[in-house]
């Protein structure tokens, strides 16, 4: 057996759920389940990654523990997801980084911070880090621009390749039996579901973010984090165009496009990550999986640190603290780039793959087959 206990438990749960189907209004997992009578390892990997962990099914379940059937689907799927993250990691040997992922992320952060600080001191005169720099090119007096670009591009580029390989491995495995074509419409529906987190709507009434009661908080916090991240990324892209196309050199004024995007994005990222961290602490642990907690908390803390140091850098960029703050901020960013394919971030890649699969297999068929949406 490819994964062992986790896949066996997920299969047992799905076989019971498929005989019940009371939860079919909550999310995409159940309509996808109903298209099957038997659950291969590939099916279970797909379904586990389609699960958004909204927990509606757990609190509604007449078979939840202490019932002897002991159905805890959010937990079973979370445990299986951890295993699929290892399974699809590229290159294979680095899958080991998903074990004790919290520790791994902490170490990467420590080395990245130390590395950037040391190299900064090494490249420049050590005093440059602690001096006040203002005016055009102030940042690059601390860390030269070409070094920033080279390290950034190399690490981020590598991560993009590794994530793409992971997506390909996930897709090859889980979509091998998919009989429907993936076309532009499929991608449109899948990206729509991902961008709106439609599956975190709990059938329109909210999710069980903390306990039996319903709320839309987790969905909103995830939106703040996700769109914050996108805004920060967009800020970097705009700044690149400013620099290389228009020849405008940073720092940019407070009300310039890159600074506004970065500020709004940074605040969204900070609010989202801190909120999600608090939710993780206060929520009912029973439908969760401890195996995922380290990776979850590590990525949230890292993103929060990137956002917080970025905002602090903006606030204090005219002071003598700028040099150290810049090095620390870029240390966190470097750690994030390095860890993207080997941390909780990969959930988004496989979830997107699962949503594409779902959009394909539930697409309105020309022949008038059944549709679910």
């Amino acid at each position, binding site marked *: 057996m490819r994964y062992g206990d986790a896949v066996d438990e997920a299969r047992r749960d799905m*076989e*019971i759920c*498929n*005989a*019940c*189907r*009371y*939860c*079919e*209004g*909550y999310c995409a997992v159940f*309509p996808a389940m*109903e298209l099957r*009578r038997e659950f291969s390892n590939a099916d279970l990997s797909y379904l586990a990654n389609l699960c958004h962990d909204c927990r*509606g*099914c757990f*609190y*509604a*379940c*007449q*078979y939840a523990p*202490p*019932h*002897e*059937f002991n159905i805890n689907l959010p937990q079973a799927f979370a445990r299986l997801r951890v295993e699929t993250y290892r399974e699809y990691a590229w290159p294979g040997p680095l899958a080991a980084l998903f074990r004790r992922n919290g520790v791994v992320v902490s170490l990467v952060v420590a080395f990245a911070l130390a590395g950037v600080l040391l190299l900064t001191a090494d490249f420049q005169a050590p005093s440059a880090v602690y001096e006040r720099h203002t005016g055009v090119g102030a940042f690059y007096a601390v860390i030269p621009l070409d070094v920033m670009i080279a390290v950034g591009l190399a690490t981020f580029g590598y991560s993009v390749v590794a994530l793409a390989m992971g997506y390909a491995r996930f897709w090859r495995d889980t979509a091998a039996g998919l009989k429907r074509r993936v076309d532009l419409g499929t991608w449109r529906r899948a990206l729509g579901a991902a961008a709106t987190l439609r599956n975190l709507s709990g*059938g*329109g*009434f909210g999710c069980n973010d903390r306990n*039996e*009661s319903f709320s839309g908080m987790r969905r909103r916090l995830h939106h703040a984090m996700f769109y914050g991240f996108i805004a920060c990324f967009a800020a970097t892209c705009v700044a690149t165009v400013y620099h290389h196309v228009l020849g405008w050199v940073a720092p940019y004024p407070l009300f310039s496009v890159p600074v506004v995007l970065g500020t709004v994005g940074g605040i969204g990222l900070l609010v989202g990550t801190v909120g999600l961290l608090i939710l993780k602490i206060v929520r009912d642990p029973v439908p969760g999986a401890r195996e995922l907690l380290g990776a979850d908390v590590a990525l949230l803390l890292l993103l929060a640190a990137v956002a917080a140091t970025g905002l602090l850098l903006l606030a204090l960029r005219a002071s003598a603290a700028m040099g150290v703050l810049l090095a620390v901020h870029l240390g966190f960013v470097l750690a994030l780039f390095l860890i993207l394919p080997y941390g909780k971030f990969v959930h988004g890649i496989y979830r997107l793959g699962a949503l594409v699969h779902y959009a394909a297999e539930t697409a309105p068929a020309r022949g008038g087959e059944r549709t*679910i949406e």
Partner: protein
Amino acid sequence: MSELAGSYDVLVAGGGNAALCAAITAREAGASVLLVEHAPRDFRGGNSRHTRNFRVMHAAPTATLTGAYAEDEYWDDLRRVTAGETDEALARLTIRKSGAALAWMESRGVRFQPSLTGTLSLSRTNAFFLGGGKALLNAYYRTAERLGVVVAYDAEVQDVRLRDVTVESVLIESGGRTMRPRIKTVVVAAGGFQANIDWLRQYWGAAADNFLIRGTPYAKGRVLRNLLDQDVMPIGDPTQCHAVAIDARAPKFDGGIVTRLDVIPFSIVVNREARRFYDEGEDLWPKRYAIWGRLIAQQPGQIAYAITDTKALNLFMPSMYPAITGATIDEIAGKLALDRAALDETVRAYNAAVRQGPFNDKILDGCRTDGLTPPKSHWAQRIDTPPYVAYPLRPGITFTYLGVKVDDQARVVMRNGGRVKNLFAAGEIMAGNILGRGYLAGFGMTIGTVFGCIAGREAATYALR
């Protein structure tokens, strides 16, 4: 436990749908309410935990219902399944109030969903709870607690003491201690007695030991027995229960929906002696599934086996238990510990009698047996394509019909025709007034909701008069 020693306007015995509707209604009317649930919190809600929908009269399509379902059609459906064992006035009251109940439920937190699959095509007549009955109960308990209803779990109402036509006191047992709170009125919504095997044995003898109870183990009928022993008027045939065929591997209690098997129309069903005993293809399955619990209860050892082949595997809803498979009928007989020669003979005789027509599982097709006793009238196909497939079956008891008689104010009626002034009943404990026999999907929840609300309103009115 201190809450059980307090003073309340209304005491509600039970913790399922009807009890919650009564408690919420009474509290909203200004009464102080104590709800006494026998089960612990994790298993609260009686059989409502296993329900999924609610049958509702409506004049036009709604967000979750298609078409229209008028009072007369609803009444006709009920009259047909009960074969007249109903009270038309109470039945029509229930039907008429079911329409407005939908909005009442939604405003107390219950969520509905459009029906999708596996639901016997009920999207016109029945509104489906998003997440099922337990989600409905969670919503009601949250609402009740927010309103200030006091909820006591792990507490059993053992005695509702009547004196003439008044409840004098109520005895509650919890954690080894007994208490008598001061109360003005009582709503009993404590269910039937289907989980009380000793009681079932009175009518079924030792066969009752082989019954599986599909729902809560807490439906012992203690309050029902207590009231009938004090000359409350019984209603409904005490010997009858709703029983379907479920997988024999199901747990004794609380297996719920996932243990049901819809394979019978596509199989032959044999008893312990490997003989067939009833027409498996008599009529469409939704019209026949509820007779098979009784049929198997009448067989030796209360066990039967559905046997078919690989052609049937995708024709019915999956159940939680895997099929027992074998490359030959002989292997199946071995796995089921049936007489090999007898099973072989039964299958041969059946196969020889099959007159194959075009097979269609959606209609009363022409696939039938010729010259076989008992016949299989539809969906008869030769059992000839290995792997062969078998499922063990036992009677699964859903609910009992015996209850207490009530009037249109949910007030409990005595044998002498008198009304108990401060005692009201709702839910399964009085459903026999309206559903005296048979079954109508989602109607138990309708009776519970409508009479729960009536009982809560009347109890509060009496207590606050």
